[in-house]
């Protein structure tokens, strides 16, 4: 009996022990369950966040794949380094730094965009910093874009496509009469004011228009040529109340792939203490590219008052052969001796140039080496044969 009693007590103690043990484990299991639930919520939160970050990161990666997108804006520099034998522009054989063009563009939202282009220019005495372009734009639709600021005038093809980027064109420099205002150009290249532009695609082709109104060019005395002037477009105001107007319409026919044709014109007033005149310049341009072949030509007619009109034009042909692009260009300015506009400008003398050269693309998007021969037939100048080399780049 005693043994049975002992076994009973032992069993009771064991049951009590198991009961307490079970209770203790149940409590611990409940804690573990709570911990798992909490961990599950944390993981769900993290998964959601990772998904959000992937979306943001995906869009950002897409943007970075663009050419220059950094810090949310596009940044870039065009530059060139040159060697030239003696010429009408260079007194001695030698090397020279071309202008460095620093530009930045930004798109804010769907319709606002901005552009600033600063040129660092070097001459024998000093380094100049010029605002080449600076504008703010708003796109209402493809047909109606408004920009306010300093622009390149819509005068022909070259001035609207290449701007200050020498890597973008085959030859070493612009046609001489299309040089910038401070480099003896005779066509107003810049304008400060309002620009309206737009384009529409029709079954017949794409039609583009540009209309500009703003401060026209003033005359600035040329320190290198006594009694002569250069054109100058002031950023800080206008020298007179007369405004310059520019218009251009171009057409790209669907039927002839690679062809663009345009007509353009401008009217402005230039004056100094002794005279005042209205100048009208109008013309046409044609661009054609098929396979590796490329042709571009522009014609300008310069007219003022009763004097006979002056003519300026160039024609350039080029053909891509792998990395090489040989090219030929003929350019000329022909005015009457008594032309009052060309007569006062430093670059207004009659002149023709024959240019033959070759460009080699080290990397077509970033670097090219050009070599060219130029026969310069300028009225009153003797130096005619010029050899030039250029390394143009962009990054």
């Amino acid at each position, binding site marked *: 009996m005693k043994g049975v009693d002992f076994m009973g007590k032992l069993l009771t103690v064991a049951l009590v022990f198991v009961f307490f043990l079970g209770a203790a484990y149940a409590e611990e299991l409940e804690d573990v369950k709570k911990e798992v639930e909490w961990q599950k919520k944390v993981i769900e939160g993290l998964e959601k966040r990772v998904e959000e970050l992937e*979306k943001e990161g*995906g*869009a950002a*990666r*897409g*943007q970075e*794949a*663009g*050419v*220059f*997108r950094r810090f949310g804006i*596009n940044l*870039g520099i*065009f530059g060139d380094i040159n060697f030239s034998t003696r010429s009408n522009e260079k007194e001695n054989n030698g090397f020279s730094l071309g202008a460095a063009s620093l*530009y930045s*563009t*930004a*798109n804010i939202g*769907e*319709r606002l*965009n*901005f*552009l600033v282009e600063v040129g660092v220019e070097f001459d024998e005495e000093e380094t100049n910093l010029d605002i080449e372009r600076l*504008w703010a*734009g708003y*796109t209402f*639709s*493809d047909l109606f874009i408004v920009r306010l600021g300093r622009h390149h005038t819509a005068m022909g093809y070259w001035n*609207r*496509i*290449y*701007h200050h*980027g020498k890597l*973008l064109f085959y030859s070493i420099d612009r046609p001489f009469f299309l040089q910038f205002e401070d480099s003896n150009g005779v066509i107003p290249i810049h304008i400060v004011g309002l620009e309206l532009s737009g*384009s529409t*695609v029709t079954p017949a082709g*794409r039609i583009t228009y540009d209309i500009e109104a703003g401060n026209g060019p003033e005359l600035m005395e040329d320190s290198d040529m006594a009694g002569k002037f250069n054109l100058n477009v002031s950023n800080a105001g206008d020298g007179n109340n007369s405004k310059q107007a520019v218009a251009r319409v171009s057409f790209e026919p*669907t039927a002839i*792939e690679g062809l663009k044709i345009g007509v353009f014109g401008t009217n402005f007033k230039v004056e100094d203490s002794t005279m005042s005149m209205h100048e009208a310049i109008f013309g046409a341009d044609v661009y054609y590219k098929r396979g590796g072949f490329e042709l571009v030509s522009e014609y300008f007619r310069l007219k003022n008052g009763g004097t006979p009109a002056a003519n300026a034009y160039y024609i350039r042909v080029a053909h891509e052969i792998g990395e090489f692009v040989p090219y030929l260009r003929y350019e000329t300015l022909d005015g009457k001796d008594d032309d009052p506009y060309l007569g006062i400008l430093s670059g207004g003398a009659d002149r023709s140039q024959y240019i033959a050269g070759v460009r080699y693309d080290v990397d*077509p*998007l970033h670097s090219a080496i050009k070599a060219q021969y130029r026969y310069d037939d300028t009225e009153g100048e003797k130096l005619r044969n010029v050899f030039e080399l250029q390394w143009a780049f*962009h990054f």
Partner: protein
Amino acid sequence: MRFVIFSLLLLFLHAPAYAQDFVIIVNPEGPLVDADAQVVRHIYLGEKRFIAGVKLEPVNMSNFTLQENFLIRIVGMDSKEYRLHWIKKVFQEGLSFPPSFAAASEIVRFVRERKGAIAYIPKGESGITGVKVIGPP
């Protein structure tokens, strides 16, 4: 004989690179309803930027073969010419280069999230949901 086998082998290896086909996709709620070749070309050149007030957003695929195939067939330029065109466009009009993505899934997600988006992805790609296939023309 060895030359013939070598040439056939080269042809065999070369052919798939150019045969890689694509489909053009858009956002189903966007304004693009069909793949008119001229319209798609102008969108990818940045010359057509709005339809019915909606900003168009062309997207490129980083895959060189597919991109080259699309650009030559639809835009009429190879990738070098296309990039040069866009450098001029950025420099001239202040626009931004169209974004590129490496994976078709990323492109599909981009198009799904943007009303005016248009893109091309490899033909036969699985898991394309929430976008509308409108081409090629």
